């Protein structure tokens, strides 16, 4: 409708490999960048930025989980545990060695990647539900180890307070400053994933997901790529954990329990397996929708109920409504929000002259 895809010729390999070959896609990306770096932070109240901040952190974690579950086809219900590994690694480094965030952040990711690769070893022998149970065990073991090792957890409370991150001598502490901090890493994670999934490694992941025996026959080392997938996915989780730690100013494993793993699985199921955009949609949906439902319900229910009853009614109907919306979207499009978006886009591609 808005643009033509014909007539875009590529005369170099670089142009052929560009992430966004169409001019309209480049313009869209430029507009999105402008929106997120200039328009939103300047026009929104700090409160709305804080909500976006939560979504940005979730985007990093959801992307990581989608690499493992969506692209490689290995199930994991231990994602939150890897976040706590990253969180405590970074917190210990920041507090005991006074390292800045640009050291602790990759360090947290790498430690999580290491633990993730170890947890991934059973995936070589077991699949599906059995692997889910193995990763569930990992979740519980990691929680237990942190809870019972004061050297990691920093004492009986199992929480380590970390100082705010500093950049060039400035403390990043208001929601607006944290917004840019988190946006940078969410954008970096998105860009890295986009490139990863169309690389040799990403194609190997997809081959393993679709048929692991066939993948092995065409020369893909299952051992190496399955563990690599676990490691990369856990790296994202670790970074996500570090971001949470800096955002809240504390590392606390109680914020990374089994329920959080399930939340992240919900994000990628709702968003769509095996898609970068789907991970983002899912993270935003699960983080922001319950909040948005409340924004709508509070004034609406306020017309009928007093303040005491209001809280109880809003809290429970919000949960029901959120559940119904998940079911609705999954019934409309079982492949997730990403597929829904693509259907809409494809419809308008030739509109109004579709044949």
């Amino acid at each position, binding site marked *: 409708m808005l643009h033509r895809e014909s007539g875009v010729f590529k005369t170099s390999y670089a142009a052929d490999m560009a992430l966004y070959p169409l001019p309209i896609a480049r313009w869209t990306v430029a507009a999105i960048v402008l929106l997120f770096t200039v328009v939103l932070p300047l026009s929104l109240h700090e409160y709305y930025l804080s909500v976006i901040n939560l979504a940005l952190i*979730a985007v990093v974690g959801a992307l990581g989980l989608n690499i493992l579950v969506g692209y490689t086809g290995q199930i994991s219900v231990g994602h939150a545990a890897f976040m706590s590994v990253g969180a405590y690694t970074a917190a210990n480094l920041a507090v005991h060695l006074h390292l800045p965030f640009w050291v602790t952040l990759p360090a947290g990711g790498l430690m999580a990647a290491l633990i993730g690769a170890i947890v991934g070893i059973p995936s070589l022998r077991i699949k599906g539900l059995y692997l889910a149970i193995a990763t569930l065990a990992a979740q519980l073991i990691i929680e237990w180890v942190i809870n019972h090792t004061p050297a990691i957890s920093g004492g*009986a409370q199992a*929480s380590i*307070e970390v100082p705010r991150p500093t950049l060039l001598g400035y403390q990043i502490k208001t929601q607006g400053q944290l917004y840019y901090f988190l946006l940078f890493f969410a954008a970096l994670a998105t860009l890295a994933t986009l490139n990863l999934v169309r690389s040799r490694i990403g194609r190997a992941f997809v081959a393993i997901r679709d048929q692991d025996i066939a993948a092995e026959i065409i020369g893909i080392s299952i051992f190496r790529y399955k563990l690599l997938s676990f490691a990369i996915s856990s790296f994202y989780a670790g970074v996500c954990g570090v971001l949470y730690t800096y955002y*809240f100013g504390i590392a*606390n494993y109680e914020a990374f329990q089994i*329920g959080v793993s399930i939340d992240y699985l919900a994000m990628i199921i709702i968003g769509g397996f095996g898609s970068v955009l789907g991970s983002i949609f899912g993270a935003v949906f699960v983080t922001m929708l319950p*909040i948005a439902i409340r924004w709508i319900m509070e004034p609406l229910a306020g017309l009928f109920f007093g303040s005491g009853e209001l809280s109880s009614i809003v*809290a429970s109907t919000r*949960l029901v409504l959120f559940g119904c919306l998940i079911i609705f979207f999954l019934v409309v499009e079982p492949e997730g929000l990403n597929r829904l978006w693509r259907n809409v886009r494809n419809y308008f591609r030739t509109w109004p002259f579709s044949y």
Partner: protein
Amino acid sequence: MSRSSNWRMTAIAAGAVALMAGNAAAQDKELVFGLQCDRTGATQTVGVFLCPGYHDYISLVNSKGGIEGYKIRVLEIDHEYKVPPAMEAHERFKKEGAVLEGLYGTPQTAALTKKLEEDKILGTSPGFGTAAASDGKRYPYVFPIAASYWSQGAAAVAFAKKELGGNLKGKKIAYLFYDNPAGKEPLVILEDLAKSEGFDLRTFAVPAPGVEMAAQVLDITGRYRPDFVITHLFGRSPSVSIRELKSKGYPLSKVVSFVWGASEADIKAAGGYEVANGYHTIQFAGVGLDFQVIKDINAMYQAQGKPAPTAQEVSVFYNRGVMIAAIHTEAARAAIKAKDGTKPTSEDIKKGMESIKGFTLGGMVPPMEITELDHEGGGWVQVWTVKDGKLVKNGHWFQAYRDVINKHLAATN
């Protein structure tokens, strides 16, 4: 533009200005209290009783004209016991101009501690969060306003000492606890007291979710055979502990529970008052409906033609909600009085909170004294015992081993 439309514009503008001014005047005489709650998450068994208590007390205050002429608007946000929504709730409260916040949940309190300090808004965390938060120097904007787990541990030992005839030398005490940070927190105090009081302490951890503890209880009753048992459990597990100890023949009159294993709901889930007869519970707010403030709340409902709130059936949690609301209100009252009736800021309310002393609400609130240094207010508790089908007061408000607690508080700095 014609003359008539010009005139109309002016009228609309004037109307809008008048409306806004009216709004502003209403807001000038309004204080916003933020309340975080969990009515739908992991700890909903507490939240659905506690939070209505909070709202009811505030409605009572408003129905009597508010605090010194200021009406209170409570903004409650249900965070489902998840950590990220707690931050959203805090930012929302800040946007709406809340002067104080009621926090809910230990991980949520931990996650907001830094932000509260940066934004200079005080938060109260009764029964949640770290014991070290009673140190007002280290955590200036967090107020436990109720006995911490350290104070509860000390109180449990003092109670055991009283029950065992005033001497613990050579006695054996078992500590049955939920294996999480909150469960492990009182250990330092118990171990210290074991040394100074000369009793033998053995600990028995119950892993999450805490509904299976036959092995631990058998170990306690069959092998260790303690003179007293102190339990510190959450959620469903207190009722399981009551049932298990009872079925192994251990006398429940030699068991004392911390504050989260102390509600009517736990006793009912364990099989009723008959089964739990003799069970001791530590409380940081009064229990039962025999208080003037509860009668006032019910009278308020009656005047509106409504029945008394059903949340009162678990008075342990309901009363805690009332107590939290009452202390919030008192802090605001002190702040308004100190400023001669002008609208207080969160900073003023912090000072008001730090001046609370001798406010007992007819015996429902302990005689705590909150100061700039002691945000816990002295760690007062009361023991209530299951007797003849209800929870009965067992002695007065008391504090125990303050020197030991203060020593440990100083050591954490």
